[in-house]
């Protein structure tokens, strides 16, 4: 009787968890649908005010969704589009970069990113080298995609290794070795991304590049760094108030934290 009760309790818990996920999923989906509707409304608007209102509404919903749901390239792309339509190009660029990080082969993201950069007079200097083309797995796949590939390879390796272990077939051994090598390459690529690739950010406000952390230091460049520029963050100083960065052309300096957002 007691065992039956415990079993029943577990069942209720499982049902509750599943139903809560389902409810959350449907809520998020409804929000996404509503945001998409607002965005389309903005596209079809017949006045500037209506258009701005619709895009703002869509942006608010998408931003809420980004806080609640898991990060996704498509969601970031949608947010970036809203910012673009509202004329906030630096923020649009930031979100396009975030989307590109998760969906590196998405043509629409790359196209819109180029347009946003063009709006701010910035060049998209990105061009794929042969090296990058060869290492397609590392450069062509996002981290979540590589994680999924790694997971599949790992499971396959475990299964084939188990088969070999019991049946000692030569063909199985060769296949297992091949799968394991692929898995190791994938793992290596993930570790490189996690530990050795630089932290990138986008300037959302223009800011002078200073010699040290503080407004009283002289600027490194005569002109301030334009908003929308992608930079690499090297160091965080003064309790996160200032960031040491390097621009793509290698100029190093400090900018206040407010001016920058991490990709």
């Amino acid at each position, binding site marked *: 009787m007691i065992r039956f009760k415990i079993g029943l309790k577990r069942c209720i818990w499982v049902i509750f968890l599943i139903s809560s996920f389902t409810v959350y*999923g449907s809520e*998020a*989906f409804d929000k*996404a*649908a509503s945001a*998409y509707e607002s965005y*389309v409304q903005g*596209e079809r*608007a*017949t*006045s*500037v*005010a209506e*258009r701005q209102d619709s895009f703002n509404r869509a942006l608010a919903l998408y931003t809420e*969704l980004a806080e609640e*749901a*898991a*990060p*996704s390239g*498509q*969601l970031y*792309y*949608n947010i970036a*589009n809203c910012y*673009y*339509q509202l*004329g*906030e190009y630096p923020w649009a660029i930031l979100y396009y970069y975030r989307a590109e990080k998760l969906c590196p082969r998405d043509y629409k993201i790359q*196209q*819109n990113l180029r*347009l*946003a950069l063009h*709006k*701010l*007079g910035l060049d998209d200097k990105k061009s794929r080298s042969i090296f990058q083309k060869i290492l397609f797995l590392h450069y062509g796949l996002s981290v*979540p*995609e590589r*994680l*999924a590939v*790694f*997971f*599949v390879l*790992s*499971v396959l*390796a*475990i299964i084939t*290794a*188990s088969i070999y*272990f*019991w049946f000692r077939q030569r063909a199985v051994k060769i296949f297992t070795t091949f799968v394991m090598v692929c898995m190791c390459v994938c*793992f290596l690529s*993930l570790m490189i991304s*996690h530990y050795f690739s630089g932290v990138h950010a986008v300037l959302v*406000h*223009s*800011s002078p590049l200073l010699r040290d952390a503080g*407004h009283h230091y002289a600027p490194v460049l005569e002109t*301030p760094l*334009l*908003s929308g520029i992608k930079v690499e963050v090297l160091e965080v100083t003064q309790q996160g108030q200032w960031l040491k960065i390097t621009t793509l052309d290698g100029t190093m300096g400090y900018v206040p934290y407010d001016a920058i957002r991490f990709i």
Partner: protein
Amino acid sequence: MVMVQRFKRILFCFCLLPAIVMAEVEVTTNINIVQAGENNPIEVVVTVVRDAGLKVDVSSFFLKNEPIKVEHIGDSSQSSISIINGRRRDSHTTTSQYRFFLPGKPAGLYVLPPVSVRVDGTFYSSKSSTYQVQAGEVREDFRLEASVEGPSPLYPRQRATFVYRIYFKDNIELTVEKLPLFDLEGFRMIGRKKINTYVQNGYNVQEIAQDVEAMDPGVFHVEESIIEGFAYNEDFFGRRSYRKPRLRSIADPITIVVEAFPEEGKPETFFGAVGTFQLDVEMLTKDTVSIGDKVELSIRINGSDVSTVQLPNIENQEGFRGLFRFSDLPPVGEIEKSSKHYILELRPLSENIQEIPSIEFSYFDPYRKRYQTLRSRSIPIVVKALREPESQEALQPQIVHEKEPQKEPIEEEVVDVDEDWRKNFADLGTMEIAGNYQLEESNLKQYFWMTWNAVYVIPVGSGILALQVQLRRYWSKRTRKQRRKRGRVLFMEAIRQRDLGQLEAAFLLRLLEKGKVSRRFSTSEELPQEEGVIGDVRKFLLALEERRFAGTHQTLDKELIDQAKKIFERIL
């Protein structure tokens, strides 16, 4: 007998006396001598003790014959029971306390007249008493200083600091603190009072400072500030013993002047900044923009006192009016040490704009007593026209049809359309970018194999493989054990049945079970010819075979059995 009766009566009266006394209303007064400083209001506490049922009329207090207003401090109750000659008597008394203030008086001995009050319809009075107002002694080692630190004269919105400094040598418990600077009207207090204690020239100094901002012009007189107190010593247990006489210190009166800004020559761009300043304006965005694109300007105003700085209304300044659209929210200035920094957002509305015009900022120089105006340099800018919207033509007829169903010339109808609406409509262009994705549920979920949790597959997989290794080991061990058992069983069976063929099979199986040979041999001749137990087994089995074929030993005798057992046990 008569004596006894008298004694009883006296005893009864004696016991009844406290009860009679308790039943009366008692009014007493008390003055806090420590607080009674020279020219300071003197607090008098009136205590009324009465039976619980009697009511005090609070509006009926008189000092001598003058009515006085008292403040009720609180009540307390007391109950007692007395039993005399078997008679129980309950007594409930209530004590109420009231206070009023006598005006401050110079040092001297004074009489406090009786205070009367009506309790339950009857007036009761206290006894008159004397009290002494002590003069505070002015000493060099107990000093108060009052000062205003900051610019003089002040102008509205300018900031200064009101400071009191108390110099003392011994520990002092202050009984009177009259610090009128901190209650001065016409000044806004900024933040909390800052209290600082330090030693200067052998004196302990307690500094109490308050930042203030002048609000309105005027002349403000601050009367003298007074502090009084007693020096004290503290014993080991922290008990204080006060030393007389009372100490007193008076700071001189102060006059603060807040001057009004002169109306003459007051520029339109003056918004209350006082001091001397520098203006630095630079453009943060690129110098080529399209109509409606956001341009950010960094406006930094450096100066001595930036707290008075407010950004002028740039929207109305010459060159900006009508040509730029400004953000609805005014920029918030950020104070950075000696500068105030604003980021101004504006959007050009015409392609004819060639520069960001000069920005004006005015301030009042209190030293030269005149207004100064700073102008930033104009910043060249290129504003490109927007591309003519393609959808405009497509959309216009729809709107016209809504207004007028009749087919009339479009040009005439467009004129009728509201001007603002048409402006909005004309600004609309085609969508420059690809549209949004319609998100599906899978886009909003994160599967664990696409997160870093997927890496946990390595330890889990290793565990599964390790488990299989253990399982395989266990499996082969078990098989070997079973085989071992089979060899021995066969041997015992051969001995029991004295069967030579079975004995040979048992030896061969035993060799395999114990791993002495790698494969199973069917006859003893196939066994390798080598030294050791295998060789011995081979020799034994061949000898047995010879005997069997020779017909001398068809079955096993005792000697052979013993020999076989010895060799069998050697196979380990």
